């Protein structure tokens, strides 16, 4: 009795005294409130007043939204965004699901290679893919040139890649890996006994696929679809490079801000695109969670692989073809970076000039990019880790609210984040527009979900008894965190941070509205080089960027051991 009461007293005393957790843990929450909740609130407010008017109730108006009813440009952008996002989801499913099935269920060589090459398109900056397709399928594109030589004979010609078709085509290839990898995982991990039992009951292969396999992997397909949808509707680089006269919501926002400095109008467009995302998420949740099944038991046995030579041949040809097409951008820009120009069949004028010129023209952008990506990753790691710790371990009232807040940027188009930050911090008492600070804040806000998810996953796997036993031994909160919790979740933190670093290096959609001459980053310089038609330099800079990103992702794989895609997953 003496011992337990002493112990109780001791713990009580400790917890009374120990204010450290409250102080330390309130910092990240404060950050989220100031740099996420407040800017979003400002942005929503501004959407309901006209440009130049004060944000007060008397100025309330729907005028900014009325343009969607009056302006044909607005209507077309909205329609384009819809058409593109849904088409991209449709085509990624159409192409990615068979590929996932083949790699998971057919016996074939080089599966590991296919899986790792399959990731490349997501870790390649989207706008790099877009401009490499201009080289291949643009007005003077190589492939188009060749195809047209043939089509000429029958009096036809392939149109250049600009416009809706090109955007859908490039986005489909860019986001294909999400569907491929998620459906591959689902096909692989579906309980094989369920299919075997159907076979025993007399069901044919196609019936099993229709009645058992597909319904069971539907939740994974739903998750992949929403991931692709969110990215497709928020992507700025691809429609900016390939869109021409065809605007989508993100390029329209850019147009509003860059052309008219109309943050109010831009906010209204931003709100609309967020509403679309929220509706899509709701539909996905409705459709999918109704079909989210708890598995009755986990099976240890493995799927039988198809060995039929015919099926094998189809699978191998299909996967090689898809890989070849989706890796064409990487091959193209590497080639392009060594030549002066590429018009007609072969690139012309071999040169190393594109690389030699880099230090001269891009050293500032490279330095800026590295500085911003590194510092923002560190800050993201800190905030993401602490917030994950709060929601997983402290579980305060409203933990769900914190979870929701921190995940919001994951579904927000990047350009919406920058509109929100500009709404709050480009005028009035705090004006940080054009500084490194606003870029860094936007990066941190946008990527905190990555570290948050990664660390939260590590924490749920970590037995709480380890921390409790440290407390029982008399350790303070800070001591326990430093000596027990932190070392054990470190792999999760590192994985999330490197992923953050890799994606921040190629960030364009947030920084496009926030950069100034002083703070220009590497992706922006590439984007501008593309806009100027300087493809050689754009390519050499892209290769530099790609190599850096690949090294980062490779390092992350060393830490996680799993496919890099896990970090991209939603929920």
């Amino acid at each position, binding site marked *: 009795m003496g011992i337990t009461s002493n112990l109780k007293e001791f713990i009580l005393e400790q917890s009374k005294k120990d204010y450290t957790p409250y102080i330390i843990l309130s910092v990240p929450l404060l950050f989220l409130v100031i740099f996420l909740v407040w800017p979003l609130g400002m942005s929503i407010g501004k959407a309901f007043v006209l440009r130049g008017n004060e944000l007060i109730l008397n100025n309330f108006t729907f005028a900014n939204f009325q343009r969607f009813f009056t302006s044909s440009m607005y209507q077309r952008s909205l329609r384009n965004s819809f058409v593109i996002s849904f088409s991209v989801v449709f085509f990624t499913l159409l192409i990615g699901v068979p590929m996932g099935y083949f790699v998971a269920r057919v016996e074939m060589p080089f599966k590991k290679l296919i899986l790792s090459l399959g990731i490349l398109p997501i870790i390649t900056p989207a706008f790099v893919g877009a401009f490499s397709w201009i080289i291949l399928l643009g007005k003077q594109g190589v492939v188009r040139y060749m195809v047209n030589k043939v089509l000429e004979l029958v009096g036809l010609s392939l149109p250049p890649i600009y416009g809706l078709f090109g955007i859908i085509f490039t986005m489909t290839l860019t986001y294909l890996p999400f569907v491929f990898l998620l459906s591959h995982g689902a096909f692989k991990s579906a*309980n094989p*006994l*369920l299919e*075997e*039992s*159907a*076979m*025993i*009951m*007399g*069901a*044919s292969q196609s*019936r099993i696929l229709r*009645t*058992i396999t597909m*319904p*069971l992997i539907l939740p994974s397909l739903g998750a992949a679809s929403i991931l692709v949808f969110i990215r497709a509707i928020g992507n700025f680089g691809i429609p900016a490079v390939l869109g021409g006269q065809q605007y989508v919501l993100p390029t329209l926002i850019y147009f509003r801000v860059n052309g008219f400095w109309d943050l109010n109008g831009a906010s209204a467009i931003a709100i609309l695109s967020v509403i679309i995302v929220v509706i899509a998420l709701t539909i996905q949740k409705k459709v999918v969670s109704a*079909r989210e*099944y*708890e*598995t*009755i*038991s986990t*099976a240890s046995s493995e799927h*039988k692989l198809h060995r039929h030579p015919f099926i094998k041949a189809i699978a191998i040809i299909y996967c090689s073809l898809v890989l070849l097409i989706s890796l064409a951008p990487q091959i193209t820009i590497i080639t392009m970076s060594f030549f002066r120009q590429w018009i007609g069949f072969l690139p012309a004028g071999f040169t190393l000039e594109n690389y030699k010129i880099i230090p001269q023209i891009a050293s500032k952008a490279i330095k800026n990019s590295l500085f911003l990506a590194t510092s923002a990753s560190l800050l993201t790691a800190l905030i993401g880790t602490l917030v994950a710790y709060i929601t997983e371990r402290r579980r305060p009232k409203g933990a769900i609210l914190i979870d929701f807040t921190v995940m919001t940027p994951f579904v927000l188009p990047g350009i919406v984040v920058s509109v929100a930050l500009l709404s709050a911090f480009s005028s009035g008492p705090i004006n940080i527009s054009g500084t490194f600070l606003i870029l860094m804040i936007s990066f941190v806000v946008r990527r905190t979900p990555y570290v948050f998810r990664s660390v939260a996953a590590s924490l749920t796997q970590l037995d709480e008894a380890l921390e409790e036993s440290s407390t029982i031994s008399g350790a303070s909160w800070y001591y326990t965190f430093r000596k027990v919790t932190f070392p054990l979740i470190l792999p999760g933190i590192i994985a999330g941070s490197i992923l953050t670093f890799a994606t921040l290096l190629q960030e364009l959609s947030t920084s496009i509205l926030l950069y100034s001459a002083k703070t220009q980053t590497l992706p922006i310089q590439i984007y501008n080089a593309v806009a100027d038609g300087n493809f050689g330099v754009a390519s050499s800079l892209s290769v530099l960027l790609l190599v850096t990103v690949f090294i980062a992702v490779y390092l992350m794989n060393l830490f996680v051991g799993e496919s890099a895609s896990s970090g991209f997953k939603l929920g």
Partner: protein
Amino acid sequence: MCSNIIYKDVVKRFEGKEIVNALKGVSFEIEKGELFCLLGPSGCGKTTLLRISAGLESLTTGQIFYGKKDITTIPPFRRNIGMVFQSFALYPHMNVFENVAYGLRVRKESKDIVRKKVTEIMKLVGLPDVLRRNPSPTALSGGQQQRIAIARALVYDPEILLLDEPLASLDAKLRRYMRAEIRRIQKTTNITTIYVTHDQEEAMSIGDRLAIMNNGLIDQIGTSDQIYHHPDNMFVANFIGKMNFFPGTIQEVQGNNCKIQLEHNQKRLDLFFEMNPKREQEISKGKKIILGSRPEKLTISADPEDDLLPGRIRIIQNLGKVTRYEIAPLWDSENKLIEVDMEEKLPGIKEGDTVYINFDRKNTLLFSGKKAI
């Protein structure tokens, strides 16, 4: 309707990084309407044999017949069989009715027949009321899931029913109840059934006949009585129930009795055993044998007598019906602990005491080269 199953020289070799000989030539027959248990330790090949019977694995060589039909190369969905998996493998995306109806839907039965047959089979497995709420199977208890899995396997009148450790995921009490239920359902439908388990008590209580498998081969087939009382070899003897082994040498054969000298370090003990006529030709003077005795056929006493074996009690366990004494033999330090089950607890004997072990001379088995003689 249902048929017998004949296995002819069934061999299964898994060729991966290393070659595994899962079945090394198995031949036997399962009779029509029989509930046949495949029993053995994990890795003995029993599950492989079941999966081969279902057509989920192909055989390397050999043949399998259902009745007169050679089904060796027929894929599982054309075999008309039912199977219950250890994990039940119920479909989480279908309700109970659709789970049970799956095989009928595959067979394109009319709506009325599906409804009638599902209702009937649910009555047979003792869950007629579940259909009224018709929930997802995930919402049901383990025992109910088990019954639904059985219903699903039986509803389309298969020729053969295969059960793969069907009770392994249930708790102990439910397991005893469900095994009686499975036997009842099997006897009602009279379907030829193969039942795989690693639990010897379960196999003995449920099976008409048992096959004891070890290391890719069938060691013995028989009723539980035959196997328990007349095991063919030491593996079977010790797998079905416990058997204590005592190595020794035959000293003398005198008509119905033979004199055996047990091996030990300090002294020699001579014991007489009654002869089984079957054993006669195998037994000769000087032959090394191993003597086997079940725990309930040994007795202990506190009084030293001439030809009793001394031992020290390590542990006394009260198992309800019997008291189990685990005894370390004093004559051989390397020997394993000997188990003795006594119906009555000996008064005044406690752990650490020295006791003397006596044999039931009529109920002792002799083994030579691991085989029973």
